[in-house]
């Protein structure tokens, strides 16, 4: 009971934190490096507790992200759905990859996400983004091990305290 509540808190708290991080201001030079936090944390939860992460959840989280970002309603929903689908398909393999291979997989997922975003924007008639557009997946892949270790550690700690 207690453990499920702790898990519940961590799960929703991490997602809430993602929205905050996504909106957080950064110095101008670091802005293009800001990774898609929501996607990274969703990848973690999809790998660890796949029964919680469904396409519907990804869709709803994306919609919430769109409302906060105020861009195009449905854009992040579409991106997260595609990401989540690919992830759940290959989850059993990704889970047992060593860390660096997981990072590469995250990089591929985020790059794919960037391509989807580029397509959406091109169809919406926006001008092509600068080259720095492609930097964010790299920082995302670099951030992945730390996110993974942080959440794993938090969950282990709660588990240990529980037992």
């Amino acid at each position, binding site marked *: 009971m207690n453990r499920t509540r702790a898990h519940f808190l961590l799960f929703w708290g991490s997602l809430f934190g993602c929205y905050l991080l996504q*909106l957080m201001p950064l110095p101008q030079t670091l802005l293009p490096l800001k990774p898609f936090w929501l996607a990274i944390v969703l990848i973690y939860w999809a790998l660890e507790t796949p029964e919680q992460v469904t396409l519907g959840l990804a869709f709803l989280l994306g919609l919430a992200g769109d409302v906060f970002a105020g861009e195009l309603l449905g854009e992040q929903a579409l991106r997260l759905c595609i990401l989540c689908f690919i992830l759940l398909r290959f989850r059993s393999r990704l889970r047992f990859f060593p860390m660096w291979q997981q990072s590469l997989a995250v990089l591929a997922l985020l790059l794919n996400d960037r391509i989807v975003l580029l397509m959406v924007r091109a169809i919406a008639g926006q001008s092509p983004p600068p080259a720095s557009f492609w930097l964010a997946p790299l920082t995302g892949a670099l951030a992945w091990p730390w996110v993974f270790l942080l959440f794993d550690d938090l969950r282990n700690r709660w588990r240990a305290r529980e037992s």
Partner: protein
Amino acid sequence: MSVPRSTGPLFTADAANTLRLIGYLAVAIVLMVADHRGAYLPRVRYTLSLAVEPMYRLAALPAQIARESRLVLADRERLTEANTKLGQDLLLAQARLNRLSEVREQNQRLQELLAVQRSLDLGVQLAHIVDIDTDPNRHRLVIDAGANQGVQVGQAVLDATGIMGQVVETLPNISTVMLITDAAHALPVTVERTGMRAIARGTGALDALTLPSVPVSADLKVGDRLLTSGLGGHFPAGFPVGTIREIKPDASGMFAVAAVIPSAALDRSGEVLVLHQLIDAVGPPTPIADTGPPAPSAESPAHKK
């Protein structure tokens, strides 16, 4: 024997998943197309502002705390220095203001003389920047004044040194400003020295605007100041926009392209001024009601007689 039985459900689960994906993608695409066409996201955000606004404030909190703690910890020497400088600036501004008030009085007299009804005093409203960023690829600011404070979409936003942008979306207590450097922004300007008209486009870089497709023969010099022309009706005329930094021929060689440094401090945070819509904004004349040619068949022959 157990193998086919175990793959059976697996495949159907996969198929169901794929179907579900297609369903969600279709919904997302329908939403995007509808939003792109009808732009109802602002309305959705307006209704959800109860959730959106606290989130924005919360996300801006760390930066605000950092700024305030820096202020608290700023050493005395720097503060004194800043104070003296501000005092000098104030004196200067005061002197300028005095001169201006004289000019204004004169202007008033002249206007009365001309019996011009419209008044030229600018209604402005001070707003603070909420320090968040929604998308690094777009140049947007969020300010802490919204529909409840009387901000409307289309109002111009300035700082002390020039035009910053215009309001593109309002929530009850917060609104979004598109900066003039946003790649999707264009702004009608005139060259102060010659009065030449041009369009200043955003480039997507925070320190550059561009004047595309200027005739090669145009009288433009590096260092020329650009002002808003007031054409188009969105921005009032006469506010500084930027200074020309460089002029070079474009790729075809038929036109010149001028790079412009914006005069507003777009990368600073702090206070901005939201300009209330001027009643007499210079805009395109309202189209004359389409009366059409007088119907020749019935009326005119009868009248000619």
